[in-house]
């Protein structure tokens, strides 16, 4: 990437129940970060946070978008959905809490570890939700100039 392109972004539409394409956004983000020379530990944290957020829309919501933006200062991931919303955010944040139905568990999701995973991997994390309307999630992972090598 030319050194004058200091911001790289991408936007994905997510559909509830669309497991077939699940992970496409996180996978692209991972590829972008690797091509920028971001250290592997940071790439892993960002990919895991994005993937869990993406899966939550597919599992729990009706439709949503994932937008990511990478600058020399940070990796910013924004996930907004239309869906049932989360009634009790503190409860949802607890490890092991899940309302996922059995058919979702049979696909390997619903351990109740997604939101705690996102929080753990993010430097800054903001979750807002309105019951009956939807949920927004903002994730930031900070970079330094050395981490954002931009040397490709």
């Amino acid at each position, binding site marked *: 990437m030319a050194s004058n392109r200091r911001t790289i972004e991408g936007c994905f539409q997510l559909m509830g129940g669309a*497991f*077939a394409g*699940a*992970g496409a956004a*996180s*996978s692209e983000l*991972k590829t972008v970060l690797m091509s920028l020379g971001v250290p*592997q530990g940071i790439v*892993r944290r960002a*990919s*895991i946070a994005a*993937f*869990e957020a993406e*899966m939550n829309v597919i599992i729990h919501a009706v439709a949503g978008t994932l937008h990511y933006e990478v600058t020399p200062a940070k990796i910013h991931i924004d996930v907004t959905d239309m869906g049932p919303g989360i009634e009790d955010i503190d409860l949802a944040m607890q490890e092991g809490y899940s309302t996922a139905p059995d058919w979702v568990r049979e*696909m*390997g*999701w*619903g*351990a*109740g*570890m*997604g939101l*705690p*995973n996102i929080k*753990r991997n993010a430097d800054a994390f903001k979750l807002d939700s309105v019951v009956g309307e939807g949920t927004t999630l903002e994730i930031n992972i900070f970079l330094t100039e050395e981490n954002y090598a931009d040397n490709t």
Partner: protein
Amino acid sequence: MELSGVVELVCGRIVVKEKDESFDITAVCTTDMMSDVLHFAKKGELLVTSLNQSQVIMTAEIADIPVVMVVLGKKIEKEMTAMAEKKHITLLSTELPMFTVCGMLYAKGLKSCVNGK
């Protein structure tokens, strides 16, 4: 332990080959819950699971786990094979159950990717 040794040990077969037979496997993760993989797995080379869906491959890619083994002879869906090819994940299959596979690998000195023990 070499990839080819693992396949032989569990009487398995290679469904998608993206690594050399000599690829070294030292640490293993075993679960059917994908968020557990993303939460607990540290550095590991093999994910053993009874799930036969492409979700598992996506999770392996995100968690940097290059080899996935499906146990119990579960029929591997063609979407899963296609995803493994696309993501360059080596996919193995065995008829053996999870308990037996894990016991065999443990006895050969392989470690858990959760705590390295």
